[in-house]
């Protein structure tokens, strides 16, 4: 049977646009059918916005790419109707171990708190992740949802105008041109669109090389993240081992700065390294081997008129913390509803500027975390190494040093403090669900809070009266009426009420809190909806 990445999942087919006499105009054109572009297309199509999704290839990506998908990503996938198969297929994990030399110095649990539908992380190969998304697109197309996925369509020129973007595309049948009201560039870290526009992508490059190998091996090891500092099999460097589905393991070796890449990439040398790590008797096959250096950088702005950048095209981080694909999917989650409201004429174009604010805020948070992890893993000076080693030495026996060990601060969603979309906050309610925060999940008997949120604006009321529906100048706000008694575990009360008896939360279509009060006040809610949609 061929591997999933060998199958043309969206082979080239001639589009009617190629025979049109004048370039056909589309509301949204997405460039790049990687994880971010695919999620973006599904989100927009679910909101009724027709999308054209272009990819230069006709199949899922290959190579050692994203593997860890965080809880927040899984919640977004649930909203888009494709979380379940991924969680079923993925390897769930929440435990990690950190070793120094041969000794374990630290073990952690990423989900000390219960009452969440989804686990802290699943590991899933990016090619599988993409294949599930393509499957979801096929299902939506069968329902008549407007997604046009065009394989072997390579964008090679764009012309940004005030009211649209002209896109020139190469295909096996030759070039053609279309127009987009909005163009979303999800075309990866080397974004051709960014290059065509001559936009800068500035930040830090790390000099250390890393060998990343995905290997197929039947090993009886637990599903946890293992990280080594200065192990005997890779002296003076680090190593990482992570489990993926189907007996695939991700192995990541730090190689140092001045290395002979061609030499290191040779299968015999890779196999020698892996044998030193896994034992002489270990049986495995190499799936992919690559050598990387890492960058932490971002564009100065993600919005350029009618062109929007998302995912790695807009920002890049080191892999420590799994903040690449996860943050890109959150970009799409943030942009989808805003673009829909603007396209439907329900919000002004200024709403799109808040994408810039909120996702740059998130990118900066991710870059900061990722840079700090990389500096801990690959110290840049003698004193940095001295303190790093001191932390690791102390961590084994002294609990205080364990929080200082940084082998990757794993992806958490950004709380958009200070966002221009945030409305009122009420005193005394818990900080974690303040305006700008992603709604925290909580169990509701057999059901989960997070599954009842998203898609449109909602008014979550807890033990507080409010109308079932409000119409705010064309934007409907549906009530989700809850009681603290719905959750005997008290997680709902703890996460949304604190000491209060009741509360009202305005939740955005991307499940982030927009504003909150102790009780319902219609004028207040209308003002908060206006603010959250940039109408005022």
């Amino acid at each position, binding site marked *: 049977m061929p591997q999933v990445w060998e199958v043309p999942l969206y082979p080239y087919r001639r589009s009617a646009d190629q025979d049109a006499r004048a370039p056909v105009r589309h509301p949204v054109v997405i460039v790049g059918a990687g994880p971010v572009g695919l999620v973006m297309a599904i989100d927009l199509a679910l909101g009724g916005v027709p999308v054209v999704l272009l990819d230069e290839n006709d199949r899922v990506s290959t190579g050692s790419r994203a593997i860890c998908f965080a809880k927040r990503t899984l919640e977004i996938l649930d909203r888009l109707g494709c979380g379940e198969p991924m969680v079923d297929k993925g390897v769930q994990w929440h435990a990690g171990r950190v070793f120094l030399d041969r000794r374990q110095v630290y073990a952690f649990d990423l989900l000390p708190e219960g009452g969440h539908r989804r686990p802290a992380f699943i590991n899933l190969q990016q090619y599988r992740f993409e294949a599930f998304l393509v499957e979801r697109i096929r299902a939506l197309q069968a329902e008549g949802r407007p997604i046009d996925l065009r394989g072997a369509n390579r964008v090679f020129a764009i012309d940004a105008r005030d009211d649209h973007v002209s896109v020139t595309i190469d295909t096996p049948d030759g070039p053609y041109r279309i127009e987009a009201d909005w163009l979303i560039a999800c075309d990866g870290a080397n974004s051709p669109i960014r290059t065509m526009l001559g936009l800068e992508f500035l930040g830090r490059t790390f000099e250390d090389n890393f060998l990343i190998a995905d290997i197929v091996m039947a090993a009886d090891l637990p599903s946890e993240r293992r990280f080594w500092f200065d192990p005997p099999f890779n002296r003076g460097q680090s190593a990482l081992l992570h489990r993926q589905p189907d007996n695939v393991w991700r192995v990541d070796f730090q190689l140092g700065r001045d290395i002979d890449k061609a030499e290191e990439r040779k299968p015999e040398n890779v196999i020698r390294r892996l044998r030193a790590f896994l034992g002489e008797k270990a049986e495995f096959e190499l799936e992919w081997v690559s050598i990387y250096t890492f960058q932490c950088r971002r564009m100065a702005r993600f919005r350029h008129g009618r062109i929007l950048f998302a995912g790695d095209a807009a920002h890049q981080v080191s892999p420590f913390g799994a903040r690449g694909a996860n943050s890109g999917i959150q970009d799409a989650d943030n942009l989808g509803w805003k673009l829909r409201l603007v396209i439907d004429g329900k919000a002004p174009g200024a709403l799109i500027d808040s994408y810039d604010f909120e996702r740059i805020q998130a990118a900066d948070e991710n870059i900061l975390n990722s840079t700090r992890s990389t500096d801990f893993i690959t110290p840049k000076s003698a004193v940095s190494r*001295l*303190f790093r*080693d*001191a*932390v690791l*030495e*102390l961590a084994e026996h*002294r609990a*205080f*040093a364990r929080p*200082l060990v940084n082998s990757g601060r794993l992806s958490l969603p950004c709380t958009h403090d200070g966002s221009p979309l945030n409305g009122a906050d009420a005193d005394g309610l818990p900080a974690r669900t303040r305006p700008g925060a992603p709604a925290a999940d909580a169990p509701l008997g057999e059901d989960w809070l997070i599954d009842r949120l998203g898609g449109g604006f909602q008014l979550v009321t807890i033990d507080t009266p409010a109308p079932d529906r409000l119409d705010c100048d064309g934007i409907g706000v549906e009530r989700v009426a809850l009681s603290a008694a719905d959750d005997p575990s008290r997680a709902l009360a703890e996460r949304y009420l604190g000491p209060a008896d009741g509360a009202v939360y305005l939740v955005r279509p991307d499940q982030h809190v927009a504003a909150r009060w102790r009780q319902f006040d219609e004028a207040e809610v209308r003002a908060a909806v206006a603010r959250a949609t940039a109408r005022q």
Partner: protein
Amino acid sequence: MPELITQPNIDRPDDFYAELIGLHEGLARQESDALNARLILLLANHIGDREVLRQAMRAARRP
């Protein structure tokens, strides 16, 4: 706001000083450096207060 204590605060200072130097006895330069780093981390955690730690870092940089 808590302030970094920069007035004498250690009982029998000569004894403390001898203990600090004695701690490094017989250690190579590298081992001494590592010990100092561990000591700084232990003391910093004991102090805990970020503002006091910042003041101490500033004071150390500009004696």
